[in-house]
């Protein structure tokens, strides 16, 4: 009688493969612009959701090579063009992973600016060194040749896919309904039952790492899982 060997995690086949996609973007220049904090506040309230997404999520992709010092365009402008370090700090800690919708992020940013201006009214109309231009982006999702059926293949694909693909699945996916976390964790849990690994991936800090660092950490965690489960 043949004995069925237990399948190790690394080669266990998923019901649905993971298809790696990527994103290409085109920046649209919006109508709103701000030359001081009061105007920034007005723009924050009136700009389209796509602008809030662009200046918080999208900008992480544009600045994926930075390990520290950059969080979102609003914080950077308040710091560099307005020299309002106190407000810049409050805006910089807005972590996109804490939100499941753009209105929530908008509300948090508007609240931070409003409370700062209430405490520092003189800062409101002080001219910035350069204006802030509200933008948005048109996104086109592009497929890649990388498809993973197993955890081992997943690790392999992660190492070969472009960084824009990592951003697409790990960062911008968090606002893609109905998912509110990264695509990788969702797939690992749903298709391979790796709940703990999925949670570990979701805890990787995207603000203190470059996107290359993020990829390295994901691969490391996945490979640890494969090694741990290999007899």
């Amino acid at each position, binding site marked *: 009688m043949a004995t069925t060997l237990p399948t190790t995690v690394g080669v266990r086949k998923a019901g649905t493969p993971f298809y790696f996609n990527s994103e*290409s973007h085109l920046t649209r220049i919006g109508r709103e612009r701000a030359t001081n904090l009061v105007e920034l506040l007005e723009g924050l309230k009136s700009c389209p959701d796509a602008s809030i997404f662009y200046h918080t999520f999208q900008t992480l992709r544009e600045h*994926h090579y930075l390990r520290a*010092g950059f969080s979102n365009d609003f914080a950077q402008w308040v710091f*560099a063009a307005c020299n309002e370090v106190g407000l810049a700090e409050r805006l910089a800690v807005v972590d996109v992973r804490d939100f499941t919708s753009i209105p929530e992020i908008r509300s948090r940013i508007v609240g931070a600016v409003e409370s700062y201006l209430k405490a520092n009214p003189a800062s409101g109309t002080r001219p910035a060194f350069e204006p802030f231009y509200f933008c948005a982006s*048109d996104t*086109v999702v592009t497929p*890649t040749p990388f498809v993973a059926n197993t955890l081992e293949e997943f690790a392999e694909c992660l190492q070969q896919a472009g960084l*824009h693909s990592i951003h697409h699945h790990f960062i911008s996916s968090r606002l893609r309904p109905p998912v509110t976390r990264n695509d990788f964790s969702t797939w690992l849990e749903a298709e391979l039952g790796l709940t703990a690994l999925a949670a570990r991936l979701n805890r990787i800090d995207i603000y203190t790492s470059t996107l290359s660092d993020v990829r390295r950490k994901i691969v490391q965690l996945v490979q640890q899982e494969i090694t741990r489960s290999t007899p």
Partner: protein
Amino acid sequence: MSARKPSVPEPAAIAVKARPASAPAATPGTAPGQERRRAPRIPETPPVPTPAARLDDYEPVIGKPELDELRFLGSGLTGKTAKMVNSTAVGGGVAEILNRLVPLMNELGVRTKWEVITGGNDFFEVTKGFHNALHGAAYDLTKDALEIFTMYNEQNRQRMEFGEDLVVIHDPQPAGLVRSKQASHARWIWRCHIDLSTPHPGLWDFLRPLVEQYDAAIFSSPSFTRQLSIPQYLFYPCIDPLSEKNKELEESYLGKIADDFGIDRSRPILTQISRFDRLKDPVGVVEAYKLVKKYVDCQLVLAGGGASDDPEGAVVLEEVRQAAGDDPDVILLNLPPWCALEINALQRISTVVVQKSLKEGFGLTVSEALWKSKPVIAGAVGGIPTQVVHKLTGMLVHSVEGCAYQLRYLLTHPEFAQQLGKNGREHVKENFLITTNLKRWLVLFQIMLGVTQPRGTA
């Protein structure tokens, strides 16, 4: 990769020494900068153009995934046709970009033609005036000028055919061709390379109705735009990493250029590459250098053109020479326009690159320096803040004193300077390479032709 060898042994460019004319000639074994520098050996004629790079040539620079993405985007447009129209086939940044972009588009399957409008001297005099007026210069807008502009646009419109799927008109000169839009099935795009933030009001009133007939407009910076009724997109200008000005160079060639120009590579080198133009503030750079020199033994290289063919350039060069006095560590190089390799080398041997402009278009020399992983200190004007994210990809300054302070800081904090340079290169790779520009065109074409439905947010 071998460096181009100078074809002419004798100097053609002017190396303007900031030391007394009586200084002794250089002798073997003498440290550069300590004795009179010998004149540089610069070719008198332009080099033979190198063959245009093919898409595969970019793989070592941008990686295979990025190249695959371009190919995928191109595949969605296979069989589609596009036409680019501008006003000059040679010279100027637009022609330079189209020279590279059009072959790459065709390689990706988007059959792209490039046509140039024709016109008499009167037309180009008018459009030069328009160019300056759109940048905010005083201009006497006459009925004759508008008629000349309209007449030549009409002549070109009658001569040209617009059977393509996409028509891209570059800059204001051929903007009137859009009158053919009704008779074509194409989507029309206006690519504006100039800063329209403070245009001559009367001229803008004339151009605006033309511009708003297009399906979309493209600008190089959000600050260059006007409020328009059509969608406006952001396409940054770009550099070609494989061009003479940006390609990797051998160490031996860098050493040769330093030697030719009398630059001592054992001491810090501060460099500004720009025309001798007051808006680039070369005198301010000399003043900042002098403030730094009190604390750090460094050299200043100011290299660019404009002093031979432009009377004002010669005046500015003289002002710079006066400001430099007899300091042998200030090296002024008035280079002919074909010295791309030499400029490349000068940027690569620099410790810090400065672009202390007082007014600027986009300022692509900043991206050129960032691409070479150089820490950059630059004036916060025009398109520079897009390239230099303060304290992250470089340092923005607003004064001579600020420039001097940041120079001192970077010279005494080399690890921070190195990190800025590293970040700067990645910033350029992400935003300002010709391959990124190519991708933007492909995405825009897909959107305009309805090949794909874009997502607005996530």
